[in-house]
């Protein structure tokens, strides 16, 4: 549905995105993840035909974003980052305007607008001036605006930014419900948001694509993915040496030292090695107390930090 190849964008001499390629299948929800200034908004603006790329190509539903921009624009519902709306218009009036501009038949407009307001929970404020709505409701109007012409593709740039936790939850739920059969790109730098709703994640940093996979695969791929946390009462140096001697253990780190002599250790393990079962006998053998042992899954957050920081170091 969306194919991006070698996409590059320069603002003057500043390279905002550099040779990015990815594709999104029909019906897929793709997370677009990156820290501030990574180039997320820039990429979305090219896909939505706001401005052309400096190099590379972007195709939506088989149409080139630059050559056939009208065809692309007809198929996309876009919620820009800061939710720009006409603040002097009423909600229903604004949605009718957007529906009209997006080619919804004049006869079907009222129906579409009513349905969209219902879906987005806007019925109570349909006659209110947009400028007087709370941020959460404006966000809903922004979403409604993107959905009102029933587009095949939905591009949402940080849809929950600046909302309180309750509203964040509501909007996320709404996005999950509204995605339906649509192809969705969801930009964010909030990790749980992405791992919750997205089937696949693109991670970009400083304009470069650093990873693209499912959240689970990304977590698994991560080199330090498998770690085991153990808490042992015993002399720290000896414990580190003993744990380090177990086959399959790559590295042992003392995480927290306590006065009572029980320290936490993070044990990094080679992939595939079954170390967890080998640890207790070693501890017991030395006559120490094993107070706690648990496996630690790498979260998407670890992946993100890892990828982004290793990129910086490189």
């Amino acid at each position, binding site marked *: 549905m969306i194919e991006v190849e070698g996409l590059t*964008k320069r*603002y003057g001499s500043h390279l*905002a995105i550099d040779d990015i390629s990815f594709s999104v299948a029909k019906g897929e929800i793709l997370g677009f993840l990156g820290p501030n200034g990574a180039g997320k908004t*820039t990429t979305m*603006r090219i896909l*939505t*035909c*706001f*401005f*052309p790329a400096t190099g590379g190509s972007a195709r939506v539903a088989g149409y080139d974003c630059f050559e056939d921009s*009208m065809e692309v*624009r*007809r198929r*996309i519902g*876009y919620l*820009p980052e*800061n939710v*720009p*709306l*006409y*603040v*002097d*218009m009423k909600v229903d009036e604004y949605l009718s*305007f*957007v529906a*009209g*501009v*997006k*080619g919804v038949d*004049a006869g079907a407009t009222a129906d579409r607008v009513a349905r969209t307001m219902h879906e987005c929970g806007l019925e109570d404020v349909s006659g209110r001036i947009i400028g007087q709505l709370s941020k959460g409701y404006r966000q809903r109007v922004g979403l409604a*605006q993107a959905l009102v012409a029933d587009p095949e593709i939905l591009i949402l740039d940080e849809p929950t930014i600046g909302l309180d936790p309750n509203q964040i939850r509501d909007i996320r739920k709404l996005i999950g419900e509204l995605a339906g059969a649509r192809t969705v790109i969801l930009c964010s730098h909030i990790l749980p948001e992405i791992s919750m709703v997205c089937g696949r994640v693109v991670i970009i940093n400083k304009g470069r694509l650093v990873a693209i996979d499912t959240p689970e695969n990304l977590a698994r791929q991560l080199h330090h993915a498998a770690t085991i946390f153990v808490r042992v009462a015993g002399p720290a140096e000896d414990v580190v040496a003993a744990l380090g001697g177990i086959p399959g253990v790559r590295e042992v780190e003392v995480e927290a030292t306590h006065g009572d002599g029980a320290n936490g250790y993070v044990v990094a393990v080679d992939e595939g090695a079954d170390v967890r079962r080998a640890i207790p006998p070693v501890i017991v053998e030395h006559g120490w107390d094993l107070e706690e042992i648990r496996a630690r899954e790498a979260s998407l957050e670890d992946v993100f930090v890892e990828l982004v920081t290793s990129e910086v170091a490189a």
Partner: protein
Amino acid sequence: MNPRNLGLIYRRELKSFYTSFIAYAVIAVFLAITGYLFYNLLATFSVLSFQAQANPMLAKQYNLLNVNETVVRPLFGNISMILLLMMPLLTMKLLADEKKSGTMELLLTFPLRDTEVVLGKYLACLTVLATMLAGTVTYPALLYLWGRPELMPIATGYLGLFLLGAAFIALGIFTSSVTENQVIAASLAVGMLFFFWLMSYSAVFASPDLGRIISYLAVNDHLQSLAKGVLDTEDIIYYGIFILLFLFLTLRAIESGRWRG
């Protein structure tokens, strides 16, 4: 170009002129100032008429006692000057504000052509201009209470005023497209309009050939002949070209803004 899209932009923009009270403010101030100027012209005219009754020499100066020459034509001159100051206030927000508030990003990613956007906004401004001018029709109408002004110069004068205002609006949209600051947009527009206006003064000092060119380029000289009742296609073509040029430049400015990102 899709007429439905044009209509949607036009109606949205026109409505926003009224819901934001911009149209009311501009129209009210415009009518107040022009009304005051009309009153002064009328007062001068009646004083002159009284003096002419006592002084036959003055009465022979036909021009002075012609209501068209003494009231209507100066009135049109005054109105054109007020238009120069007011039109930029109407146009300054058109694109600058869309850019500043970010709504431009949505507008330019809707399936709309840039020409539909610009023309829709332009027509909305023309409608406000027409309303402003319609409000001033009361002044010449009042003249009928006392005299019989010639109709033709009034009709062509209004055509001239409308074309002049339309030209001001085109230039105003252009300056609004090159900045996201409304104050800068309005200042640029007033500056450029004064330049096109004051050009005619330089025509006096230039060589005859150059003088003719300068005077053709000056925006107000064309109103003068229309206000005299002379309907010359040359004047109408001048305004047509002026308007098309600045609308075209506006489209170029939007386009280049796209490329710059």
